[in-house]
């Protein structure tokens, strides 16, 4: 029993540390912190950097047990916008993202549609460790994920394509839907050239492309009419502040302007928003790093392909499912062996205990 308890404790410890390793990014943890101006130059004083209070709306996301829908209540818990949405987010810049019939749109403070629901997904902003914990617990409803200075970041899921690895495993082919606009051939992790997908983001290469099939889409920003005004190959787009927004290109953050142009090159592991012309940033310092725990990356993560017929014109759906089933199972094999050993140990222990109990009964 003691041996089993020890193994169980070790197992739990390993699992918890792997979870914590995901939440606490070492590139942010082992970093130098300082302030920069809008030209990307380090500033020595940060006296002008003060926390600005964002507008507080007396509209709080709330859930109704009666009809199982979401709406907004005021501070006295009266319904201001009645519960009729599948999910809601906090207000920002006068608008809030809400979900209806599996699509996201935006409403104003009176609950009227400003942008009718048409987006498959929205972003959940992660600007601090606390927000990351809330995200892990799937409590995005407590966070505002919307507009700032007239623009909102949005994953352009509808403009995505499927990427399939070729038989020799050396190249990636893009499965282009009918009417695909070749002008928009840049995605988060690479770009399309002559139907071939060129992977640029090597960090993602191992994690995502171990599978035969992956769904790739760009990110962008929309204005208050729902029109896509910025479209780019960046990740983790943050809210605009003083005309600049932090975005992640590759593994580092930089800043873009309202035209989508990179104005501060990506070199930061953390990038805050600009306040009075100054932003707080962190730059990864390898010398500070004492122990680097390698991130457990699961290459067997399967993509959701429920609406595959809308995109994969060239490959029939049943073939794509065959490809998906042939995923690389190598990390599961050692784990299965360990688990099998534990099962055998426990089996023998239970059998022995039963025999002892039977022997005691006979006595």
């Amino acid at each position, binding site marked *: 029993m003691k041996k089993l308890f020890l193994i169980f404790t070790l197992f739990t410890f390993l*699992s918890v540390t792997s979870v914590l390793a995901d939440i606490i990014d070492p590139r942010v943890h082992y970093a130098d912190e300082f302030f920069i101006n809008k030209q990307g130059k380090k500033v020595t004083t940060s006296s002008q950097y003060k926390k600005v209070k964002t507008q507080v709306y007396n509209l709080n996301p709330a859930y109704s047990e009666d009809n199982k829908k979401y709406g907004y209540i005021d501070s006295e818990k009266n319904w201001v916008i009645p519960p009729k949405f599948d999910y809601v987010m906090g207000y920002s810049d006068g608008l809030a993202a809400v979900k209806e019939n599996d699509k996201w749109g935006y409403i104003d403070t009176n609950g009227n549609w400003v942008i009718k629901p048409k987006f498959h997904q929205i972003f959940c902003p992660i600007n601090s460790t606390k927000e990351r914990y809330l*995200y892990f617990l799937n409590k995005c409803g407590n966070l505002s994920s919307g507009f700032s200075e007239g623009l909102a970041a949005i994953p352009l899921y509808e403009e995505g394509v499927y990427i399939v690895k070729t038989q020799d495993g050396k190249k990636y082919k893009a499965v282009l839907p009918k009417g695909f606009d070749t002008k928009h051939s840049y995605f988060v992790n690479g770009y399309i050239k002559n139907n071939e997908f060129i992977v640029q983001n090597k960090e993602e290469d191992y994690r995502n492309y171990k599978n035969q099939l992956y769904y790739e889409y760009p990110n962008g920003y929309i204005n208050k009419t729902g029109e896509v005004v910025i479209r780019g190959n960046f990740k983790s787009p943050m809210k605009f502040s003083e005309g600049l927004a932090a975005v992640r290109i590759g593994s580092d953050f930089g800043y873009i302007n309202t035209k989508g142009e990179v104005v501060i090159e990506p070199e930061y592991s953390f990038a805050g928003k600009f306040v009075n012309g100054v932003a707080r940033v962190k730059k990864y310092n390898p010398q500070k790093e004492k122990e680097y725990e390698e991130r457990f990356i699961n290459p067997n*993560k399967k993509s959701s392909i429920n609406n595959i017929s809308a995109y994969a014109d060239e490959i029939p759906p049943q073939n794509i499912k065959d490809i998906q089933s042939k995923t690389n199972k190598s990390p*599961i094999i050692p784990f299965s062996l360990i688990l099998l050993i534990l*099962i055998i140990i426990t089996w023998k*222990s*239970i059998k022995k205990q039963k025999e002892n109990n039977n022997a005691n009964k006979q006595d």
Partner: protein
Amino acid sequence: MNYIYALILTIIIELSVIYLLGFREKLLFYSLIIINILTNPLLNFIVNRLNETYIDFNFLHIILLEILVVIIEWLLLKLVIKSKQLPLFKISFIINATSFLIGLWL
């Protein structure tokens, strides 16, 4: 429908393990069926939900959830079956570990 198939398969595997170990207590069998009805669909729902969000949900997170299930099932068995002779924690571990191992390869 997938949740139902997973639940039925889990119950079959777990009851088979208990039977092969030589346990014949009816209360144990019935308790396991009810406990699985309570916990198994919920676990599968949580796993699917976390997998669909933007989080980097991976294999080790699933292990952590399975460990929680072992503990919860053990506590529920303790609540229902007040026998000190039955090694309830070991039973909870072995039935969940077996169904998890088989589920990995299906």
